[in-house]
């Protein structure tokens, strides 16, 4: 195995290094950060046969252009439905391909989705903070944002032909985003929780790694706005004084004084994050016990899915042989 180098010819805003995230520092004001779509990030590594959690690139709607200047490396592209151009060959995300010296890869926003992931068969080097490369975009702490002119180093870069081709997409529900009401629902007028969980909202332009501001019916607060600063989680739906809800995401503040009407359950955050400005969404309230049951069921389904896509399908030749054998058996 050798090293590979990729030159960044172009990177849109908010194209960042991300690993699985640095958990455990909420008490010190540090959100875990990590990928906005954790399942797509995990799938990017599984599809390459990588161990989970290593550094990958999160690509925003701004897009990314890479040129391989040294070596060869197999990569995966997952996440939203982005358009890829690999040396003239047009494709979409959810594929594994190999970049050879001189190859150019372009990722652009495609039909749907807000975030794509590029993982590498090898070790992508990135600056670390508190043991993780996950980038906290607001502060730049962690691996940081990618910029034109930067050179990416991939140690122990491998070519894994047997993994090239399409990657099975995960099944994701398209139903309402499920929330558990609270913890500060008492700060709102009685109508607010019903409004929030029955009326449609849309994603506004104010959407970044920190949070997603929504457009829709106002959620009126009772009297005085000020509550003592309370802990915030990824998924907290906080409502500012004007009655507008914001869902806090990967780079959220860890405490704050705006009341939170509800919290999105973790299993629904990935598909929420892939929504784009202008798209509508609905929220559905569920009891906390059901939220735990969904979390357990989802964890199981994800494990099964990631194991399935982690199995190399073999080289083209091996696959053709397998097809022939299957056909032979069918006609026996």
């Amino acid at each position, binding site marked *: 195995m050798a090293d590979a180098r990729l030159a960044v010819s172009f990177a849109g805003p908010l194209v960042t290094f991300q690993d699985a995230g640095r958990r455990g520092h*909420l008490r*010190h*004001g540090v959100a875990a950060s990590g990928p906005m779509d954790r399942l797509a990030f995990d799938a990017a590594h599984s599809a390459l046969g990588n161990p989970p959690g290593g550094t990958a690139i999160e690509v925003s709607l701004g897009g990314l252009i890479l040129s391989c200047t040294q070596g060869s490396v197999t990569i995966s592209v997952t996440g939203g439905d982005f358009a890829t151009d690999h040396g003239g060959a047009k494709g979409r995300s959810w594929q594994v391909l190999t970049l050879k010296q001189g190859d150019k890869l372009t990722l652009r926003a495609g039909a749907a989705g807000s975030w794509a992931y590029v993982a590498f068969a090898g070790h992508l080097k990135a600056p670390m903070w508190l043991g993780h490369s996950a980038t906290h975009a607001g502060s730049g702490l962690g691996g940081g944002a990618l910029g034109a002119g930067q050179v990416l180093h991939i140690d122990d870069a491998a070519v894994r032909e047997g993994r090239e081709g399409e990657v099975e997409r995960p099944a994701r529900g398209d139903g309402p985003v499920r929330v558990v009401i609270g*913890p500060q629902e008492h700060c709102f007028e009685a109508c607010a929780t019903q409004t929030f969980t029955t009326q449609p909202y849309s994603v506004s332009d104010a959407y970044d790694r920190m949070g997603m501001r929504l457009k829709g019916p106002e959620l009126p607060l009772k009297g005085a706005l000020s509550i003592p*600063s*309370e802990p915030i989680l990824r998924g907290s739906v906080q409502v500012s004084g004007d009655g507008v809800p914001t869902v806090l995401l990967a780079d959220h503040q*860890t405490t704050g004084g705006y009341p939170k009407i509800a919290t999105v359950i*973790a299993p629904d955050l990935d598909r929420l994050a892939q929504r784009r400005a202008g798209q509508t969404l609905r929220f559905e309230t569920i009891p906390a016990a059901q939220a735990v049951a969904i979390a357990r069921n989802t964890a199981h389904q994800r494990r099964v899915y990631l194991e399935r896509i982690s199995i190399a399908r073999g080289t083209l030749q091996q696959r053709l042989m397998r097809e022939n054998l299957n056909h032979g058996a069918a006609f026996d």
Partner: protein
Amino acid sequence: MTDARYTPVADHALLISFASEISDAAHQKVIALDQALADDPPPGLLEAVPAMVNLLIDFDPLITDHTALQASVEPLVQSLKPQALRRATRRVQVCYDAPFAPDLPAVARATGLSEDAVINAHLAGDYQVLMYGFAPGYAYLGGVPDAIQVPRKPVPLRDVPAGSVIIAGPQCLITTLTMPTGWSIIGRSLTRVLTDDPDHPFLFDIGDRVAFERISADQLAGGSHG
């Protein structure tokens, strides 16, 4: 007996609240519970997030759930010992000289004190780390003396450098990043809250006491850490 309210949050957290209004008593219970959880973590606890009047436990829903976690936390809450908290005292060096204290004249005017009196009052405060928030390493310190408490400025100032010592109402903060702030900037510190020490990356634990020490502009420029 301590009264606490338990609120489930999403599929993976439990909020334990001791009061709805800020008080020293409520915050001491938060710290006492935080320390009790550190000594005796219940199964499934991933991390605890202490705040002003409540503490949030983030848990692994594959290991526990809201009900089971509440059952293991309740005995801890019932035997809290807010009188016996572990608190370190951390020293923070501040230069109050121009140009590092651009709002000192305005604070002096607003409080009717001389600039030196504002500085001395700030140095004399008994500070305690209440919680972190807003941004990495932003530790909210309670204990700004009444005589120099001023409200937030109406318009935030942009690009305030890291290490700025800022005050608003009863709270003081040492910034860790270049950020906008509407708080009054009364000094600049060399002491870093984000320490770059992998074994102790944050200067303060919640509940620590903080003592400010005055340094000169020369000491600030010279990078003296005392």
